[in-house]
């Protein structure tokens, strides 16, 4: 998800073909006065705001209106309330980053029954509650990629720890699962995962947890934090403990939050996809369904503006692409 995330990309289809397949005609003409709603997990989070920028870009290209509507806190109960009032307004389509995959399924289903197309993005809704899920990156790629990254950064040897978001965040857990798989490979035998702790996506708690890790394991070499809050807090904890270079931080983060730490060496490299593209693709997908180009069935293909063509895989998932790795060489090209 937003790596601060809660829900799961259920599917982990490694073989999703993002390559060009059959091209459908661009949807631009079919816009009309449609209003799509882009629903983030909560308002006031830059990651989602960036996604909204991409969505607005898509809206302009397609000639539709995209409204960005969210609840105050990342909470399923509030999100359901919001969706109910959106359904009542008979909007033209919903793109939702779900706070709880299962909890949102019933309300998503209700929307679909009322002929309001629903897609989930960033964080999945259980398949019964959405037509398509737009997945930012393949979970296996993310999980294994993190281990490969840290291995490179610490020279393939030493103790590492994971600082996750909340223990209930399924996508985090899926990624962690793949990290553990990757660690079993012989080339990673020098790495020892000593602990998995949870910072609950709170800055303060994540900071304390990172502090605790360094104290409990004085010879810790690296921290992987697959969440934007945790990775920034870890970067700061390492800096404050004057352990830059001794403890390497990596994970998933946004360039703006991590810029200082990339330059200081606390976190030489980390990964993320482009949330703007995610929002952009979500709106294109929603538009394609809304105009009847696709139904959301496996194997259907559609064109998403500047991003090219996408195919829906067998779990109703569209995959955005591979995550970008940010380091000192490229970080200044990004601003989100």
């Amino acid at each position, binding site marked *: 998800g937003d790596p601060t995330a809660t829900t799961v990309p259920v599917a982990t289809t490694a073989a999703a073909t993002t390559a060009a397949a059959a091209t459908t005609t661009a949807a631009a003409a079919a816009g009309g006065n449609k209003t799509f709603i882009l629903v983030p997990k909560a308002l006031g989070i830059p990651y989602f705001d960036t996604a909204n920028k991409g969505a607005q870009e898509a809206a302009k290209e397609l000639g539709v209106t995209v409204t960005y509507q969210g609840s105050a806190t990342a909470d399923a109960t509030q999100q359901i309330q919001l969706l109910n009032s959106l359904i009542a307004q008979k909007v033209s389509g919903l793109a939702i980053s779900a706070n709880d995959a299962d909890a949102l399924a019933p309300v998503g289903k209700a929307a679909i029954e009322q002929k309001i197309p629903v897609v989930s993005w960033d964080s999945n809704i259980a398949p019964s509650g959405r037509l398509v899920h737009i997945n930012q990156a393949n979970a296996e790629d993310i999980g294994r990629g993190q281990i490969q990254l840290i291995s490179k950064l610490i020279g393939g040897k030493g103790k590492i720890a994971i600082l996750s978001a909340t223990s209930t965040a399924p996508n985090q857990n899926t990624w962690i699962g793949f990290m553990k798989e990757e660690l079993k490979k012989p080339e990673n035998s020098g790495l020892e995962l000593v602990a998995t702790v949870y910072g609950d996506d709170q800055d303060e708690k994540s900071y304390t947890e990172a502090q605790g890790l360094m*104290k409990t394991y004085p010879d810790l070499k690296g921290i992987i934090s697959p969440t934007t809050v945790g990775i920034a807090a870890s970067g700061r904890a390492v800096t404050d403990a004057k352990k830059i270079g001794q403890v390497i931080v990596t994970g998933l983060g946004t360039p703006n939050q991590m810029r200082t730490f990339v330059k200081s060496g606390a976190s030489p490299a980390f990964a993320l996809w482009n949330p703007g593209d995610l929002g952009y693709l979500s709106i294109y997908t929603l538009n394609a369904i809304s105009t009847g180009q696709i139904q959301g069935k496996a194997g259907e293909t559609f064109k998403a503006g500047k991003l090219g063509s996408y195919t829906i895989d067998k779990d109703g998932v569209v995959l955005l692409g591979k995550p970008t790795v940010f380091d000192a060489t490229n970080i200044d090209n990004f601003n989100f």
Partner: protein
Amino acid sequence: MIAEKPEVASPPERRFWQIFVKFRETGIIIFIVLLSVLVTLRNSAFLSADNFRDILLNISILIIVALAQSMVIITRGIDLSVGSMIGLTAMMVSYTVTAFPGMPTFLAIPLGMGLGAVLGSLNGLIIAVGGVPPIIATLGMLSIYRGLIFFYSNGKWINAFQFPPEFRELAKGTPILGIPNLILFAIVVIISVFYFLKYTRRGRDIFAVGSNPDAARFAGIQIKQTIFTVYMISGILCGLAGVLWASRFESAQTNTALGFELQTVAAPVVGGVNIFGGSGNVLGVVLGGFLLGIINNSLTLVQISPFWQLAAQGLLILLAVVVDSFILRRLKRFSSKRKR
């Protein structure tokens, strides 16, 4: 058998045995010592100077705000809007310092306190002049100030790289004896609040108003002004906390200090401030904050399963409250026996 309100703040005593008996903080100190021993047995890193410094750093902001909260509680009030006030001042100050990187960074402190004073004063006006019950007024302001953070920033956070580099020194600099500023700020606040509560008339009025508002009216105490004052102080200290927060965590986010109010209430409660008003003292609050800090710190050190951490934390807070009240009652009985 009648419900007795826990009693606090004892005057100096002459007889030796009474010093211990009347010392309200005995319970919590015993609890802190016990917990520390247990944790040290599991992980000796707990007793290191480094760890001690980290604990102090982690609780400094909490103690600053918990002291403000205590003053409010002593007047029979509560300030649930502290988290939002911290968040709002943190955001506004962060915007200002990033917009004027050349400005002397220490100016951020008076700026934050000034902004906090305005927010706190609004609470104070609504409660003291408007007569709205504190819990309702500040519950409302909790949402309103939090909403303003969002409106103000349009969801745009300030991140570490945007701050002028000196800004982090505000909290983390070590000008004196290698002690971080953050801890020094906390010490200054502790001493000021202690002096204010013990040695100024307005400070004493706070206890009088909380102990018996009717009597305070008869005694000619300016009740409204007193109540206004505590909420204003709460705002000022939250403003200070906001600046320190931004400096320490090098970020200002829309959810900065979200939910912090519960901790700021927990510290005084654990520290023996009477939740029904009228009594409480600075040492207790500081120890209460310290205990919370130790609990948080030790849970990460003893490697308890992360899934059990929250339960353990709640259980320890409960235990602290229970043990404290038991010890207090024991001591009281002891002292009343000795009177005969």
